[in-house]
């Protein structure tokens, strides 16, 4: 395909391509953040490409009322595949490049009590709390990411919050496997 053909294709973008581009414009940055909170930058960029590929192929299935949770769910699945070493056979030639944030951006203040309490919870509880607080999702959308019913998501979130509150109140507690080497 020569340059002219590529230009012609760009000029003749179909409504479907336009729809995809608009979707990507809405979800790519939040999905990138979702991934960067859970993996390193290089993997996040690769998994974002995989995620966009799935979104393109499943464009008609993306629910208009919950496109971001749906995209998170796809990204979560692509990340799991990535971690299992199942990179897509059709890895794209083009790579997404990430631009560094401003060097002077202040790091968030570490809330040690909270992060330690969070670490002591089971992974599923940690994840649902992150979806709630970091991705700012409500139970209905958390349900879409975790592929469970809204009721189940609600109950799990409620329990996770209770566990976190308890862990905060009683830092020494646990049957937990606290990190070794801590004072």
């Amino acid at each position, binding site marked *: *395909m020569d340059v002219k053909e*590529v230009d012609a*294709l*760009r000029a003749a973008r179909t409504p479907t*391509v336009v729809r*995809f*581009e608009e979707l*990507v414009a809405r979800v*790519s*940055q939040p999905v*990138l*953040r979702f991934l*960067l*909170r859970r993996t390193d*930058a290089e993997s996040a960029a690769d998994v974002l*490409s995989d995620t*966009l*590929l*799935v979104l*393109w*192929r*499943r464009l008609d299935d993306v629910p208009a009322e919950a496109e971001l949770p749906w995209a998170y769910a796809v990204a979560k699945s692509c990340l799991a*595949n990535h971690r299992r070493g*199942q*990179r*897509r*056979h*059709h*890895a*794209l*030639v*083009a*790579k*997404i*490049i*990430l*631009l*560094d*944030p*401003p060097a002077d*951006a*202040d*790091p*968030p*203040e*570490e*809330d040690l009590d*909270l*992060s330690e309490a*969070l670490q002591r919870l089971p992974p599923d509880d940690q994840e649902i*709390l*992150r979806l*709630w*607080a*970091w991705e*700012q999702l409500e139970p209905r959308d958390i349900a879409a990411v975790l592929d469970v019913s809204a009721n189940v998501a609600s109950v799990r979130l409620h329990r996770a*919050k209770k566990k*976190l*509150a308890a862990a905060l109140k009683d830092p020494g507690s646990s049957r937990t496997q606290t990190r070794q080497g801590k004072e």
Partner: protein
Amino acid sequence: MSDGRGEDIVDDILRRRLAAGDPLPPQRTPALDRTSLEAVMHEITTPQAPESGAVDAPRRSRWWLAMPAAAAAAGAVWVGSSLLGGGSASQTPLAVPSPKSTMTISGPAGDPTSMTCLPVSVELIRGAQFAFDATVTAVDGTTYTLAPTTWFKGEPKDVVVLQGIPDGAALIGIPNFVVGGRYLVAGGDGQVGACGASGEYSADLLALYDKAFGS
């Protein structure tokens, strides 16, 4: 026991506190390089020519049939023999089937959401191990019974049983089989070919089969 409002307030405080510990607040989030993002989107949305794709771009998929990496390694999804370097001698259509012979084939292995397609071509269809024209006579759950009328390639059978069509098969061009519908089906390794290799009977697809297998 706190009332609902009290619980909401506690929730709100907890959420804010957790959010404050987000390791990636907006100001520390890397931005997406727009040019590279557009290049990826362009690659995703641009159909790839089969010949150039197969020869010139080793990192791209070479599939004209949907094929995830793991399945490819295991040979789980049928691809045209021309891609695998195999290939059986072509065979002219027809032949009378032996009585009540049956062939069972399955849908493509793997998750259609993790597969992709390249446009089907005469050369790739020619690599099919079987190809026939058939009508669906029965559906039982996800098992379809087909009655072939013409065999373009492969050992003719009276009946073909197709089972295990995965959810989302339409994503990779597997036709929606319905009773009474007429289909052209090509495939190999016991699997129905995806990505346009099989489809509802049409003059266009028939012309492709004729070119691939015709005398």
